[in-house]
């Protein structure tokens, strides 16, 4: 029984909340400093005037025939960069996938130990895939622009390198996680590695492989627009030029084109995945 002089127990969460709040505030200050967070500069008279002028010039979006022709060309170039890059990435990824997967190992049958040479080769391939994946594609694009100059070649190679790492890794994962019974039996009955792959692994995994490849192609289109901003051609490079000239009407038009392009790629991707997978 409680008497009026008994006090209720103290709130166990209060101290923690207080400490967390103070810690958050303490961390906020260096964050604001470190990122030069100065929202008042947005309101600075000069930059505000420049920004307002720029925004005002957005409408109406540029629509001269000449400009639209250039925009269409740049859009096609973006799609071409993405497609060419993906094709090269596929060429690179497929052999790496075949090397990296353990399901096609002949020496592993029955012993559960791969021959050491085969094991080393597989591990090296996996490491190579990791390296290709880790460097951001934009960094590759920057480097390639330095080597090969401005233009689509840098974009194609950047996509080819990074995406071959990505495709190789995911393909290997898809193959490893699919039903291996058909493949294992073909190998047990003396079929070669490629035969077992074509007749056992591919039919099981084809739908997922195709679906992921098409999804990556869609990502490549967006990626190639982004890479254009460092000089790798396409719609991105054109947009960068217009931005530097503060030509708001062109920027607005190209943003619209970009959103339409992404939507179209999304539609094509869904349609293809429905048909092929």
């Amino acid at each position: 029984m409680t008497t009026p002089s008994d006090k209720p127990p103290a709130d166990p969460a209060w101290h923690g909340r207080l400490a967390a709040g103070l810690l958050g505030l303490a961390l906020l200050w260096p964050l604001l400093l470190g990122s030069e967070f100065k929202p008042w500069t947005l309101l600075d008279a000069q930059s505000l005037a420049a920004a307002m002028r720029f925004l005002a010039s957005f409408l109406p979006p540029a629509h001269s025939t000449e400009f639209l022709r250039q925009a269409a060309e740049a859009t096609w170039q973006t799609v071409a960069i993405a497609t060419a890059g993906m094709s090269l990435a596929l060429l690179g990824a497929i052999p790496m996938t075949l090397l990296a997967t353990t399901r096609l190992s002949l020496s592993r049958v029955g012993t559960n130990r791969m021959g050491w040479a085969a094991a080393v080769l597989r591990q090296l391939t996996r490491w190579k895939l990791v390296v290709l994946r880790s460097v951001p594609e934009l960094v590759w694009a920057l480097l390639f622009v330095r080597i090969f100059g401005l233009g689509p070649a840098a974009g194609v190679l950047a996509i080819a390198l990074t995406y071959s790492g990505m495709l190789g890794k995911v393909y290997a994962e898809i193959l490893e996680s699919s039903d291996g019974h058909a493949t294992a039996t073909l190998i047990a009955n003396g079929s070669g590695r490629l035969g077992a792959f074509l007749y056992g692994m591919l039919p099981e995994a084809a739908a997922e492989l195709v679906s992921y490849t098409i999804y990556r192609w869609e990502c490549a289109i967006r990626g190639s627009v982004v890479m254009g901003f460092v000089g790798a051609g396409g719609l991105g490079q054109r947009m960068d030029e217009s931005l530097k000239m503060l030509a708001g009407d062109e920027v607005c038009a190209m943003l619209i084109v970009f959103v339409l392009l992404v939507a179209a790629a999304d539609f094509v991707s869904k349609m293809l995945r429905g048909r092929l997978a």
Partner: protein
Amino acid sequence: MNGLATSAAMPPAPRPPWAMLALLLALASLVLASFLSLSLDWEALFTAEAIASAAEFLRSFAPPEMALEFLRRIAVGIAETLSISALGTGIAALLGGMLALPASGRFGVLLRLATRMLLNVLRSVPELVWAAIWLIAAGLGPFAGTLALAAHTTGVLGRLFADALENLPPQAEATLRINGAGPIAAFFYATLPQAAPQMISYVLYRWENNIRVATILGVVGAGGLGQMLKYHLSLFQMQQAASVIIAMLLLVALVDAASFWLRKALA
């Protein structure tokens, strides 16, 4: 059953799949057209001189710059990158949370549609493009990067939050309202606590992603390691550039490891 006479008719071979063949042909022509229209100068890429100059270029990266003064600047760059990502994600969480309210239908269908369209536009534009745009208003430097991340991530988080709010069971909040609580209080006492774990998980996941994005956002001038990389590359200071790239890779690897470890600890 055994030994069917070989003169028995085989079922007719199926018709060739014309639609599929046409589709494959279209894809092949797309690939061919891509390569042809880009008129990539293959010879320029693979001549002995080109390979030699590329090799020369790559060799100029080694050894990466390790002077203490430079490493200090890299550390500042890393801190800048982390600040950009943290602030940008934080702002996006707040703005996204606010926009999620109309986007989940609380204020009517029209507002829901309009807000969702806005969120879609925000997240369709890639972060780098946002950065290039914000540079005009905010000038060179990490501030533009923060705003760019905030803009894009607001779209992403706003949509995720709105979906989470829409899928919540409404009884807890409705009961509070029935018993006389105001709408805002009811939201904070019933809806938000229910949705919070999901929302926090989304924010953390986006923060992890945004660190990777912030690392390279700077190549257009928006601060952090990216801006350092662009700066040194444009001056052909390859060894410094190499150090920056290594720092980028290490940062991303650390973030990956930390989040993996964190997930394991919490699961």
